[in-house]
């Protein structure tokens, strides 16, 4: 039982981690608290569904379309919708309130478009759904494939952030945008890049989740809540924290769903959140600021 719970949460945590890393880049680097991230995720799930059922392109190949498309879309959103807010904000608090309200706008518009296209029904499709025997337990192959892809993407991101010039610039802006500007880093461009990568990661997570979860047009908010809680738990701006927190959250959810009741997963999430707020508000990997 213990093994089953651990392994199931690990498989689920992979996709959560991608989404949370996406949000932590958008919030920690580009300073945008993106409350429409769940809609990005669900949008990508619908795109994967459409590609699989209408265009006969499987979600793994679909990722090659969905991820770049999300990158471009998020780049445009940052450049045209959010940059004016960044420019006019006198301080971080103002930008936070403005970005929260603007992304609420995006949330409802994206949700409205998806409702118009797909209605309120639940969707799912079958892909790699054959069972696999692992250590005496049965798992669906699609969950394992999704986890493997998520792990590969997360590793690529980690290397990209830590081994490349651009990655260093991204991390520098995350620590201090003003100081980063002083050492000739183009803060506006780096922020846009981080926001776009964040969107792409989230979309990637959404396409992977769609392989084994049923979804509908108004589910985004649930994922946004999870992503937000993971990011706060992990420590804003730290992708490693996001991974650890995503796995913890998946573990809490799976444990409660298996042992208590599947209807109480959100309660488990909130329980974890409250513990973090009370005892370590700066997050697991976060630095305590003065």
């Amino acid at each position, binding site marked *: 039982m213990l093994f089953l719970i651990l392994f199931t949460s690990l498989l689920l945590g992979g996709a959560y981690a991608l989404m949370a890393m996406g949000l932590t880049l958008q919030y920690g680097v580009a300073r945008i*608290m993106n*409350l429409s991230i769940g809609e990005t995720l669900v949008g990508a799930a619908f795109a994967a569904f459409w590609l699989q059922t209408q265009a006969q392109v499987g979600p793994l190949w679909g990722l090659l379309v969905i991820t770049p498309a999300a990158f471009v879309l998020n780049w445009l959103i940052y450049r045209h919708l959010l940059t*004016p*807010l960044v420019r006019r904000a006198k301080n971080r*608090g103002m930008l*936070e*309130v*403005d970005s*929260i*309200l*603007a992304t*609420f*706008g*995006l*949330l*409802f*518009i*994206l*949700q*409205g*478009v998806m*409702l*118009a296209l797909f209605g309120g029904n639940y969707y799912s499709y079958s892909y790699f759904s054959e069972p696999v025997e692992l250590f005496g337990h049965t798992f669906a192959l699609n969950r394992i494939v999704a986890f493997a892809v998520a792990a590969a993407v997360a590793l690529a991101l980690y290397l990209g952030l830590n081994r490349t010039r651009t990655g260093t610039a991204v991390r520098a802006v995350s620590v201090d945008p003003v100081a980063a500007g002083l050492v000739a880093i183009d803060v506006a461009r780096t922020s846009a890049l981080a926001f776009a990568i964040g969107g792409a990661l989230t979309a990637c997570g959404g396409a992977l989740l769609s392989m084994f979860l049923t979804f509908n047009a108004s589910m985004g*908010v*649930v994922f*946004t*809540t999870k992503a*937000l*809680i993971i990011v*706060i738990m992990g420590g804003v701006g730290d992708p490693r924290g996001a991974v650890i927190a995503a796995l913890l959250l998946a573990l809490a959810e799976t444990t409660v769903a298996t042992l208590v*009741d599947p*209807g*109480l*997963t*959100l*309660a488990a*999430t*909130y329980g974890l*959140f*409250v513990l973090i*707020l*009370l005892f370590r*508000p700066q997050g697991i990997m976060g630095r305590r600021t003065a």
Partner: protein
Amino acid sequence: MNTREVLIMAASGLLLAGLACLPLADEGFWLTLGISLAGYVAMSTAWALFSGPTSYVSLATAAFFGTGAYVVVNLGETAPWPVVLVVAAVCGALLALLAGMATLRLTGVHFVIFTFGLAELIRQLVTWYQTNIGGAVGQYVFVDISSAQIYWQLLALCGLVFLAGWAINRSRLGLALRVIGDDETVAAHSGINTARVKLLLFCISGAFIAVVGAVLAPRWTYIEPSIAFNSMISFQVVIMALLGGSRRLWGPLVGVIPFTVLYELISGHFPNHTHLLLGTAFLLIVYFLPQGVAGRIEQLRLRRTHRETHAARSPATLGETAR
């Protein structure tokens, strides 16, 4: 109280009395619209009592509203109505106290995130309780109250919220809130217990919203968690308050009327497009009306008086420079 305030009070009293006559004229469409307007005015004004000066965007409205409605589900048939309303207010305040204690000493973002999922959390908990312990999901509400009575109660509640807001603005509490909204560090170093002030206001705001939920509950006759804890209410209230302007007591009122009418129209004719309306409204506020209609009016007025005083003052200023 100065003469101007007495006049405003008298005018508001007359206006309320006039509005209270509505059910005598019409019991159908207009009364329904009146109920919905009065409910949203009370909620968005109560929302702005806390969120206006502090800039903490609260999405807990649906949670308070649903809590109030569920107090009616559980007590409506057994307890006298005034007791039911008081219990609803207390429950709303308690919920605000719990949510606030976990988040209000932290940043605004922690607070938004916590309230973002709060209604959904409570909905899940209530559903879980009802399926596993309480018997059935969803219950009938049998309270003998007419639509006109609901409308009157909501009007009275609006009056009460405005009175509370007015009293707060004149008190130490109101000044403390304005200081917190401007600069929390200065507030703390001037001797303001910032966490306690925020918590207190959040509780007052939550109590009022819970009472609105309780008053409106009998209109449904059948209540289930997804109706009572509908997170759309939270977003609508935020939009209305911000559209009108959340830094003035009368601001939300200005936002409620056009938005409610538009929302009723769109949900009547194009039920699938309410999301697009909400989204557009948010973007409109952020990009074109960041201070709301009230803030915009104030800005224009300030600019005008400024121009006048400058015209009047310029000789004096010259004199000062010469000295």
